């Protein structure tokens, strides 16, 4: 069982991710529309932007897929003319890298809700670090900053963990994931966890 990315893996990952890129693009105006209400409701939907990485990883289950997916999704969003401009590329790379690092810490052996939620949280931390430099979030009042971070973490677990996991479970039922996975008994066992 080779763990290197083949053309099939890359193409499938990128096609899924460009699909997510379109979704990310639609998400931008939505995010900005709820933002001025204050109290950081917008942060609840931020988790969507980490989703490509975990969905692609759950489908293909190989090293490097999470990073590639997030980079591809952000490129897709960028090329569709995102309101965030070049920012999305940088955020995409960092978020993908952070998700990838966490999955690597699990040695790419866990494909369950916990692993992808943790990967999402890792991406979330990456995005917060960038926000700290770019958005001066450290200069928000303390109560506002706490709310900001809490909402973003909650949203991350909902989108990147729960929603991604349930989507891939449904995809597995269609049988399409068998095309791209190298199946082994170990994979089946880990599903039952």
């Amino acid at each position, binding site marked *: 069982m080779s763990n290197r990315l*083949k*053309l*099939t893996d*890359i*193409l*499938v*990952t*990128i*096609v*899924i*991710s*460009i*699909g997510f890129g*379109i979704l990310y693009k639609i998400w*931008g*105006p939505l995010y*900005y*529309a709820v*933002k*001025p209400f*204050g109290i*950081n409701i917008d942060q609840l939907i931020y988790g969507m932007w980490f989703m490509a990485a975990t*969905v692609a990883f759950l*489908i293909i289950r190989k090293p490097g897929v999470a990073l*590639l997916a997030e980079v*591809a999704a952000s*490129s*897709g969003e*960028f*090329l*569709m*003319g*995102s*309101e*965030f*401009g*070049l*920012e*999305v*590329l*940088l955020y995409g790379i960092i978020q993908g890298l952070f998700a990838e690092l966490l999955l690597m810490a699990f040695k790419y052996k866990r494909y369950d809700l916990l692993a992808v939620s943790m990967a999402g949280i890792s991406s979330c931390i990456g995005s917060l670090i960038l926000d700290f*430099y*770019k*958005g*001066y979030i*450290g*200069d*928000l*009042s303390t*109560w*506002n900053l706490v709310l900001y971070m809490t909402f973003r973490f909650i949203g991350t677990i909902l989108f990147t963990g729960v929603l991604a996991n*349930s*989507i891939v479970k*449904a*995809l597995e039922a*269609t049988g*399409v*994931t068998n*095309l*791209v996975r190298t199946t082994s008994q170990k994979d089946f066992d880990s599903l039952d966890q």
Partner: protein
Amino acid sequence: MNISFEESWLHKVNPALKLFTLTFLFVFAVTIHHLNYMITFTLTVSILFFFCTGQPYKHLLLFLLPFLLVFFSTAVSMILFGKGETTLFKWGLVNVTEESLYRGLHLGFRALVFAMMGITFVLTTKPVQLFYSLMQQLKLHPKYAYSFMAAIRLIPIMFEELQTIRDARKVRGIQSQKGLSGVLKSIKSLPIPLLSQSIRRAFRIAVAMEAKRFNSSNARTFYYHIGFSIYDLLFIVYFVLTISLAYFFALEFPLFPVTDVRH
């Protein structure tokens, strides 16, 4: 989308160089903490956006609308809830201070300049040329570049499929159920068929490419040759000149009496 436009000199700039320069400017913009400089820097990019993309003004103004929303919404959350000492206005949790007002404006301009840089790049670069340029100038692996180009070609098919699924649901008289579980079900009913079809299609394309002996080594020939020209120099000189001018004007004729917006 069919948008007619004229090719400007920005279209002729090497795509990889354009991307690299704009990425550098992006990082540069993050290091600007001086509000007046941020405003003049925004001007240098907006000159390109307004006069050099070759798009009709009607389109440019349409593109500008969401950017203004971005400006407003980014600025407002920092203005209302930012830290600061000199209070201008206080109402419950809202605490507008002089410092947070300037910081909010600064963030608004920063978001605006990022958006303009991005759209200027997208409006003046064809994706195919971008990926050919990335392969030739930055040695991006062809496996990735061609996958991107194939995926971009699939976008219209994805939209067509989305419409088909919606129509099929309508014809079969499927109505969305009420309640939270109903909402979740309808959220899931669209992406599953879309994703599974996309995966199948991507898989078939990959098989076809490999069957036709897709050569993913770097020693391959290219149909399009993307090189450098005098316009690349013009692009760089434009930014060097205008950014220096922007710095000069920001120091000599400051608009706001503030130097560093950080707390």
